[in-house]
């Protein structure tokens, strides 16, 4: 690890100002991913700006019945929050499906959104990687890509976004609040993470020196139910091979609202707009769910060794919708 300077920010404004003054600075939240990447040599910031003690550690109700989550709220606290468990169970379940108890106690909401891919080539500085070193190539395409992307990938990059939490936030239409040198702005979680295209170096649309201050969940109409399902190689403490967050509202047998987001399949949480279009107004039932999910996954382009993830995602999504139907 390279030596670095350290600054404990006294305010969001100071954090952003100091970051702008020092190219190569990084914000430090829980550090569970950043410190690891520094050990691996993937990240080598000259300055760490510690934002973990800023007063962004609260979960509060919004006036319209939504929920405001501070960027430094720990994953375990967010998963346990009664309002999250009651109103947004998909979010609580997604958080609890991720990492370990120790890591969830440390990891923050903002850091979870900004965590980097666990693609083995990205994490190994002895290997080429277009995300880490633009233009160096992507050995994953022909190499070890069993866990990597099946949809929305590019010739340059087949990485997946590793977060469970972000998948639930995408299905719940959450919004990210960003604070930067030009002030505050908001970005929908579904627009926050990028597809790799010809520039996989950027995971998100966050600008240099911007930091996440909050995530806001909109209110859900009465009768809306949600859940998170995840398939992985072991029963606990593993990244998703495929996962799904599903949000459903059914009235008199007809689907009023359906939101689906897949995890583990793409460079970002994959919001299934095609499936949702097919579901809206249709009669609730397995045949409808299956054809809607298949319409979405028709866009999948699996690599040599990961076509099984498409099948996994298909079953997870249909099962999730069926399970929600019995509760709706």
């Amino acid at each position: 690890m390279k030596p670095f300077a350290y600054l404990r920010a006294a305010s969001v404004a100071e954090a952003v100002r100091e970051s702008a003054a020092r190219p190569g600075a990084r914000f430090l939240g829980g550090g569970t991913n950043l410190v690891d990447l520094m050990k691996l040599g993937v990240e080598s910031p000259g300055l760490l700006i510690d934002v973990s003690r800023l007063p962004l550690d609260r979960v509060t109700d919004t006036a319209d019945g939504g929920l405001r989550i501070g960027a430094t709220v720990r994953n375990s606290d967010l998963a346990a929050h009664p309002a999250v468990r009651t109103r947004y169970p998909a979010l609580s379940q997604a958080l609890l499906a991720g990492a370990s108890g120790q890591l969830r106690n440390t990891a923050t909401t903002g850091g979870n959104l900004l965590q980097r891919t666990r693609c083995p080539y990205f994490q190994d500085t002895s290997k080429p990687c277009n995300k880490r070193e633009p233009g160096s190539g992507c050995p994953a395409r022909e190499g070890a890509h069993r866990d990597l992307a099946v949809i929305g990938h590019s010739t340059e990059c087949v990485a997946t976004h590793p977060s469970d939490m972000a998948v639930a936030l995408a299905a719940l239409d959450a919004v990210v609040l960003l604070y930067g040198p030009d002030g505050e702005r908001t970005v929908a979680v579904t627009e926050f993470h990028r597809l790799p295209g010809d520039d996989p170096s950027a995971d998100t649309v966050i600008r240099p020196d911007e930091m996440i201050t909050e995530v806001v969940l909109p209110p859900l109409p009465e009768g809306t139910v949600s859940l998170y399902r995840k398939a992985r190689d072991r029963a606990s403490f593993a990244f998703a091979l495929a996962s799904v967050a599903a949000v459903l509202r059914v009235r008199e047998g007809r689907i009023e609202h359906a939101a689906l987001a897949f995890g583990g399949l793409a460079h970002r949480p994959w919001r299934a707009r095609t499936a949702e279009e097919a579901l809206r107004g249709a009669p609730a039932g397995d045949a409808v769910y299956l054809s809607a999910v298949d319409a979405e996954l028709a866009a999948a382009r699996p690599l040599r060794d990961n076509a099984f993830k498409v099948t996994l995602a298909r079953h997870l999504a249909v099962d999730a919708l069926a399970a929600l139907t019995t509760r709706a």
Partner: protein
Amino acid sequence: MEPTSRGRSGEGEGRAAGDRSTLTLNINGTDHTLTLDHRTTVLDTLRLHLGLTGAKKGCDHGQCGACTVLVDGRRANSCLLLAVAQDGARITTVEGLAADDRLHPLQEAFLERDALQCGYCTPGQICSGIGVLGEAQDGFPSHATAPTAPVTGPVALDAAEIRERMSGNLCRCGAYPRIVEAIGDVAS
């Protein structure tokens, strides 16, 4: 918006010049003021600077749990915590669990159940187990908790709950069944 910083008591100056800082960690009830390279993790501080070798370095990447300690009462992977960022924290290691000559009930339970073979992962298992007991008492759910369970109040720790909650601690000897039993003994 410009919120101001909220820190632990005893927090020092925010700005640290160069690549070293002076900081204070309360380890097992005793304050230690140290000047450390910013790269130093809490785990290396314990092992290399304070001679507390209970917490172990297994993977050094947060994947094995051998380095687990309690930070302000909550379990964490000390290999991923930079000491400078923990200035003012209250840290409990396996060395700080016994009261005088009396072992912590979970330490006793590990002996009683023979919940180890080589013992390398044991300090992390025990600190993590104590974290689990506290989290369940405080009503923290896990992936094994039924979504229909009450959202407040303690969670009962059955074997499925313990296994899920302890998944961040690996044991290469495979002492898992007895680790689950030992934690279950103290939980009930």
